[in-house]
């Protein structure tokens, strides 16, 4: 049996991952640790599981792997704690860190201590995206020129307050939603970003939060591909779902439009006098957690590494710099 636990339920994805972990045969869910007693009580009751705020008690259960779902700025200290307790496999929520310094520390820790450290980029396991990547890799769609993309969402403070806290989250929309598409485009093009231009504003939920709520970025890659990303929290609170992730890849043979969250039922509800989208597509988180487990079982690095997380952090930091200066930032 492979023993897996979660460190911190601060990030709402923990609520998905616990179910992903529990559903994998041959995996023992050991429970979770969270320094916040309120969250320990809430989530141990909600998911009928063992939880503790005592890290020693948690590590006494000898996890083979942990999934870190703390606030963004606590990732480094959580990684240090886990490694200090002898954990060899870590899956860390994105963004890997809120500063370049923290992200670099995580990467060098993972390298020097030979830790299998996976950055949680679940979109690499989205069935529609995997299908398109497969065709692109086989050359069916031709040579890639550029991407137009959107990862727009609702204001995340609807779900967790700390997402809009500059210190805990490391920023707003740019920090929250730039990394998924950045990582996908690095993965698809097999190239690295060499320049970033970005603009941001506080036009949505103005006055409610200190961080930017809208952002647009243009990335340029070493192989000459380029990509725009809209990472704004522009979806209204009553939008039929949390948001979405879609992109158009333009090639010398035309274009392919991909909407990762299009597989929905439209449900009309009298109680809320509104429609909601009920997702019926495959669960990307499940694929990601299964890859994490497989990497532990096969004693190999996971297919996404800490360095992948660091590369995305570099782009986010460059985007903040560009938004502040109005200039293109070279990496």
């Amino acid at each position, binding site marked *: 049996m492979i023993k897996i636990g979660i460190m911190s339920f601060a990030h709402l994805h923990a609520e998905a991952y616990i179910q992903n972990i529990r559903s994998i045969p041959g995996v023992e869910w050991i429970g979770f640790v969270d320094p916040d007693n309120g969250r320990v009580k809430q989530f141990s009751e909600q998911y009928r599981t063992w939880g503790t705020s005592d890290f020693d008690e948690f590590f006494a259960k000898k996890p083979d792997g942990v999934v870190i779902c703390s606030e963004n700025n606590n990732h480094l200290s959580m990684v240090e704690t886990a490694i200090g307790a002898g954990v060899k496999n870590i899956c860390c929520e994105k963004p890997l860190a809120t500063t370049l310094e923290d992200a670099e520390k995580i990467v060098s820790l993972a390298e020097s201590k030979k830790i299998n450290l996976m950055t949680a980029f679940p979109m690499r396991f989205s069935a529609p995206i995997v299908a398109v990547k497969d065709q692109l890799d086989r050359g069916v769609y031709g040579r890639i*020129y550029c991407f137009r993309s959107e990862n727009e969402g609702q204001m995340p403070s609807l779900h967790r307050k700390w997402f809009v806290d500059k210190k805990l989250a490391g920023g707003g929309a740019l920090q929250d939603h730039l990394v998924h598409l950045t990582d996908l485009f690095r993965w698809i093009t097999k190239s690295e970003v060499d320049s970033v231009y970005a603009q941001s504003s506080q036009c949505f939920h103005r006055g409610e939060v200190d961080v930017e709520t809208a952002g647009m970025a*243009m990335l340029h890659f070493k192989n000459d591909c380029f990509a*725009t990303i809209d990472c*704004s929290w*522009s979806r209204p609170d009553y939008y039929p779902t949390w948001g979405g992730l879609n992109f158009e890849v333009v090639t010398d043979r035309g274009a392919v439009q991909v909407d990762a969250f299009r597989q929905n039922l439209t449900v009309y509800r009298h109680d809320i006098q509104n429609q909601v989208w009920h997702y019926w597509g495959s669960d990307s988180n499940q694929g990601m957690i299964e890859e994490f487990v497989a990497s532990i079982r096969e004693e190999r690095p996971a297919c996404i590494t800490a360095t992948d997380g660091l590369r995305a952090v570099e782009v986010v930091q460059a985007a903040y710099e560009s938004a502040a200066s*109005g*200039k*293109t930032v070279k990496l």
Partner: protein
Amino acid sequence: MKVGIVGTGSMGSTHAMGWAETDAEIVGFCAESVPEAEPLAKKYHTKVFEKLDQLLSEADIIDICTPTYLHPTQVKQAAKAGKQIICEKPLALDWQSGLEMLRACEEAGVRLLVAQVVRFFPEYAAAKELVDSGQIGKPGTIHLRRCSYRPKKPSNNWFLDEQKSGGILMDLAIHDFDYARWVAGDVRTVYTQKVSSLDPSSPIDFGLTILTHENGTLTHVTCGWAYPPPNFQTGFDINCERGAVHFDSEETMPIHNLIQTDKDAPDVALPGSPLAESPYTSEIKEFYRAICYGDEVRVTGTDGVKAVQIACAARESARTGEPVQIKPLEGVLK
């Protein structure tokens, strides 16, 4: 009144359909190749002239539907002859020429009506009205998308010659640059990257632009000649403080034609859903009323120049890789 149409390509013939819906008389077309224009002239029971001078002497209104690089000379010539002028978009290939054209028309005391037709498409006009009503607050982010295939031409394909058309950012994206200004006001900064037909290995054109408006709104403009014919997709999202408007031409198609056909796609793709009146006809009618009765129009000559200015900045940004600041024109405009 008597109208003369200059140019008999896809725009010349589209405008002719609009004029046929008014009480104006089409007194003739002006075309480089008279034999090629004969069928169109015959359809409207009129003549073809080889020289603009000849058409000018017959008409009260001149409707210029020629390749962009010819606009400045033809507009100035028509102004000098005291004709009321309608000019296809883009007004010119550079905003300085656009200003000269405005001045020439002012001095001659004639109107210069710029055919930024997107303002006449009901879906675009309705969204603008909705935003202006204040119901959903100020726009925060805007997405404007417009993509079809490379225009074809039996010969002299001026669309693909950047010297003549300005390329995709000038010829196609100008629709959305103008619309962005209409909805969110003047633009401060332009940043663009593109794939160009200048690269001989590229069979497509595609451009992505981020506009920052004076009021802080961010607009993302997608333009492409990249899809297989006959596809032409347009769409927008206007995300505002208290709501959002979404439009997608594919999602709103009331008819899906799955009939087998051997017919080729048209040379130049035009967007459009089935409507009682074509937006091109609505445009011609509004311009005609303006000329006859001095009515206001929804697009001014200055709007035409400012759209060109944004497109010029986008071309420059694509070339240099740096953001380009827009100079306010208020000082130079009357």
